[in-house]
Structures are given as C-alpha cells and as structure tokens.
C-alpha cells in the first residue's frame, strides 16, 4: 500500500524499500500455500478445507468430546483432580495459561477485524463454528503431545508434534514417514514462528502505535522500521540476553490486559445493549445469506474459518509444544484442558471483539475497506470510549510481545529438534527472529498477513496428517482415561 500512496517524486523511505523487496516474495509464497480451487464461483483455499475437515473429523470421531468433556476440563484446571504429591510441578492451569498467552494475540483483535472487513458480520458466525470444532483438534494434538514427549535426564521435557510424529509413527512401523513429517513440521514451525508468531504481531502493534500518535499524520508514520527496531531490541533482550524478568512481567500483565480488554468490549456492548439482538441478527443473516459482493455463504465461511484457525491455532500443532510441559500421569487430562483454549480464544474473546465491531457499526463505514485490521477495532472502541485506543495500544503491544516470546520458544524447540543442542543454530534462529520483527513492522498489512497465514497453515500439513494416522492411538488413550474416570479409579482429590 505504501507504494501506491507514495508521491512519485518523493524518495523512497526505508519502509518502502523493505516493502518493495519483500512484497513479491510474500505474494509468491501465499499463492503456493493458498492454492485455491473454484467451487460455485468462490475461490476456496484447500489448506483451510484441510484444517476444518480435521476439526470436524475429530469432533465426530471422539463423539463431541469437546462438549462432553467440557465440565471435566474445568475441574482439571481448578485442580480438583490434582495429586497433592505433585504440588510444585507444572499444573494444568499453568500449562493452559502459558499456551493461551501464546495464542491470544493480535489474531483476536486485528484478525477479527480483518474477517469482518472482508466477509461482513457473518464471518463471525463461522469463526465461532470453527472455534467450536477446533476444540477437538486441539484436544487431539495436546493429548498426543504429552503421551509422546521426551523427558530428558536433567528433568526438562520436550513435547509437541515433532515428537509424536516421530515416536508415534515409529511405533506403528512407519519410522521413515514419522521422521520426514517431524522434520517438515519443525521447518514449518520455524516459518510460523517468524510469520504469524512474529511479523503479524509486530506489524499490527506498530500500526496501533501509529494510530494513537496521529494516524497517517503521525510523526512515526514513516518510521515503522524504527518502532520495529525497538520491539526487536526488547525481544532480543529476553531471548538472546536471557533477561527472563521481562518475560515474566509480561506473562503477568497479559491476563490483566485481557481482563481490561474484555471489560472494554462489555462496556461498548452494554452502552449499545439495544443493538445486540440486531447485531446477532446481522451475524446469523450474514452467515447464511450474505451480500453477493462478499462471495456468498461459502466465501464468508472461508474467511471466518481462516481467521479462526489463524487465531486459535487448532490443528497447527503449536500449542501442543506448550501443553506438553504439564505433570500428569494421564495424557488425556491435558487434552481435555487444551479444549478450553479455542473456547477462550475464539468463542469468548473473538466473539466479544466481533460484537464490538458489529455493534459500533465501524465495519459499515464507507472507508472501512481501506482501514485495516487493528485500526478498525480501534475505531469501534473509540465510538464509545474515546480514550480507549491508547489503552488498546498498550494491550496490543503486550499481547504482541507475549505472543512473540511464546513463538520464539516454539521456533527454538523446532530448531533444537532439527540441529540438536547446537548453540550456533539456536543463536542464528534468535537473531533471524529479531530481524523479522523489524521486517514485520515495516511492511504493509496485506503481504504480512499473506506470509503469516502461509507459514502457520503449512504447519498443519504434517501435523494433521499425523493426527489422522495416530487417531486410533488417541482414541484408545482417551477411552481408557474416561473409563477410569467413570469407574471411579480416578477420583477427585478436592
């Protein structure tokens, strides 16, 4: 975009140069990953179908365990089944909190705005549907993540798709396939860490900083790379410098910011309470009978599903890495807990954002298609709480930062899976990660979304294939656990 608005005679800024150099690369990657077929005149990206099919499959295959297991999941998180002798180990709550803070990021704030701007209010309905189904894929990948994790001699643990692909498939007599899929996953995971876990976050956090300092007239508008550089330094201090205290403080501030964010959503919704039925009406109507310009039902559905998958990462495999750290004798317990993650992320937080945007009418403004992502969310809040965009900027920066830290960890685990404990490789990854923060901040939104989506969705190729192949192992694991639960062999401790 910056190339379009740039005056012919003004010299290109650094931001423009980065944009010009990497924009075409982004387009190339996007067109490969999002290879689309035309169904009924709508371009349907096969990779999105791949993810939704998996979520639907596991929802049916496990007999709607995302509904049946919901209450048990809450009990587990509240520690009602915790063994007192395991006090001091990673609790279910902690594993969930860590995974959620990696998932809740700009996808929930900016991603929803992107969906509504492209697909209208109806996209929200399909986001919620995708979130509901995604609970099942999350359950599957996190159960397997714990079951096949590595416990090292020094007491640390490593888990996630790399390990269940390799060990799980080896146990089925497919060691070569397992190794190949695991390596592919690790490579794509590094890409995902640099894309959605980094560039998209840096991009939208930078955008909101510019929004609150005057928009296009902001003195910072031509210095996006500089904001990116500051982010990169902050990230670098934590992941390269090892200053863990910053990460720890962020981890504690994120839940607070999430509470503030949700409260602000509630304020906007309550102030306009009379419009809530109309908003729900628009969401449902838009889902099944959208304006033809939005690409019909299928077009809206695809937009909603795509943004939901990007936001809650179900089927992507990333959260499985974080959930694997829990201490439990029963892998299925962490699977149950993990199903809460898409619920919190997509059904609660994304829906609140969507209602705020729909109710405020910001998405219907004539210039809505031009203002993108977080700017649209910011405008929706501004209509009721004029001071809120500044608070939003703080929240967005913190969400972005914590998501970047989490994804740098996922990327690190993938790197160490590929290269072993090789300090050179680890440092290389960390430095590249910081460079991508600057690139993400400087680029326009569209190429960043393209690359981010592409990299994150690629992870789902080996991961979901592995989930299908391990489906029976998974079902056996869950069935024996639920049987013990019902027979009273596993009892509540509190």
């Amino acid at each position, binding site marked *: 975009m910056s190339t379009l608005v740039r005056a012919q005679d003004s010299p290109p800024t650094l931001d423009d140069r980065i944009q010009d150099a990497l924009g075409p690369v982004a387009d190339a990657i996007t067109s490969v990953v999002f290879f689309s077929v035309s169904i009924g005149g709508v371009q349907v990206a096969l990779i999105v179908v791949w993810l939704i099919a998996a979520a639907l499959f596991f929802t049916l295959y496990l007999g709607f365990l995302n509904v049946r297991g919901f209450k048990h999941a809450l009990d587990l998180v509240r*520690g009602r089944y*915790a063994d*007192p002798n395991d*006090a*001091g*180990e*990673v*609790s*279910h*709550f*902690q*594993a969930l*909190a*860590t995974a959620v*803070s*990696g998932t809740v990021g700009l996808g929930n704030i900016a991603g929803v705005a992107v969906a509504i701007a492209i697909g209208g209010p109806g996209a929200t309905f399909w986001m919620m549907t995708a979130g509901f189904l995604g609970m099942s894929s999350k359950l599957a990948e996190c159960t397997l993540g714990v079951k096949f994790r590595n*416990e090292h001699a*020094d*007491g*640390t*643990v*490593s888990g996630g798709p790399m390990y269940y692909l390799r060990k799980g498939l080896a146990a089925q007599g497919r060691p070569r396939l397992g190794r190949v899929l695991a390596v592919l996953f690790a490579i794509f995971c590094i890409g995902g860490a640099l894309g959605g876990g980094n560039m998209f976050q840096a991009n939208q956090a930078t955008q909101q900083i510019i929004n609150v300092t005057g928009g296009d007239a902001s003195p910072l508008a031509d210095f996006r790379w500089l904001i990116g550089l500051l982010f990169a330094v902050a990230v670098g201090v934590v992941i390269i410098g090892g200053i*863990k205290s910053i*990460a*720890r403080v962020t*981890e*504690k501030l*994120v*839940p607070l910011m999430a509470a503030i964010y949700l409260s602000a959503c509630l304020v906007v919704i309550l102030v306009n309470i009379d419009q809530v039925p109309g908003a729900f009406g628009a969401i449902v109507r838009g889902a099944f009978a959208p304006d033809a310009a939005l690409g019909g039902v299928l077009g809206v559905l695809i937009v909603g599903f795509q943004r939901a998958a990007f936001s809650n990462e179900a089927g992507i495999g990333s959260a499985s*890495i*974080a959930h694997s*750290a*829990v*201490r439990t004798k029963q892998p299925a317990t962490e699977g149950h807990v993990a199903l809460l993650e898409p619920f919190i992320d997509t059904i609660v937080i994304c829906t609140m954002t969507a209602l705020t945007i729909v109710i405020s009418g910001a998405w219907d403004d004539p210039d809505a298609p031009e203002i993108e992502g977080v700017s649209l969310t910011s405008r929706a809040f501004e209509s009721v709480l004029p001071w809120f965009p500044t608070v939003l900027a703080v929240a967005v920066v913190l969400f972005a930062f914590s998501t970047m*830290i*989490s994804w740098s*960890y996922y990327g690190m685990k993938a790197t160490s899976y590929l290269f072993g404990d090789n300090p050179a490789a680890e440092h290389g990854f960390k430095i590249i990660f910081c460079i991508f923060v600057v690139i993400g901040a400087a680029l326009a939104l569209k190429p960043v979304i393209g690359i981010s989506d592409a990299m994150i969705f690629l992870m789902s190729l080996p991961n979901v294939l592995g989930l299908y192949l391990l489906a029976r192992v998974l079902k056996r694991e869950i069935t024996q656990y639920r049987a013990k639960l019902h027979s009273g062999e596993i009892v509540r401790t509190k």
Partner: protein
Amino acid sequence: MPHDVIVGVDGSDATRRAVLAACEMVKDGEGRTLLLVHVVPWSPFSFPTPEENERRHAQRQHEIQMAQEHLLDPLAQLVAEQGLHADTLVRHGDRADVLNEVVEQEGARMVVVGRTGDSGLRERIFGSLTSHLVHTATVPVVVVP
C-alpha cells in the same frame, strides 16, 4: 507412622526456637513423635513462561533438595541433640493450607510455628502465616515468639 506434633519450619530464627519448644512438649509425653514440615511457597494458579514450565520438574527437585539439606537436616540434627527423633517433609503450596493438610493426614494433636517473619506491608495486605493458620487450623496452634 503418624505424628503427634507438626512443626512448620522456615529459615527464620523463630523456627529454631519453635523446634526447641516442640521438643520440650514431646519430652513430657510417652511415645510422642515430631514431624518438621517446610512449605515452599507455590501456587498452581500462576502464569509462568514456557521455559519456566520446561524446567519446572528439575527446579522443583532442586528446591526440595536445598530445603532438605540446608534447613530440615540441620533442624533434625538439633532435635537429635535433645535426645529425640524428628521426621521431615518438604511440600509445595500455600503454607497455612499445607500445614492444615498435613495435620489432618497425620492425625496430629497440635501444630507449632515460630512467629515470623513477613515484612510489614506484605503482612498488612495478605495477613501473616500465623494468623492464617490460627484462623483455619483444626487443632491447637502454638506460636513461639
């Protein structure tokens, strides 16, 4: 083996006095037994980073080992010097909650703690271990100054 008297211990000076006071009480009765309990403050509801989670198991082992070597073993030695025997236990959690749980598990008759130890501000906001324990205990609590 169940224990009659539970002593909640930490690194403070008052702990030493509490242990000695508990020895006096046990001496008077036949066959009474002592259990020294150290609670490492911990909550299952905190927000850790992924790297903290990854190392948590090893970290916990380390915390238990340090408490055993530097706190409980010397205190058990102190009890031995009085011609008595004490068992020891390290647990993670909320201090008052864990002491109450141990009292219940052991069927103990009383719990002894030193009057410690939190700084003024913290104590004003959260209350002290002692006052929590006094308010929630199901057996007599002896507080040693």
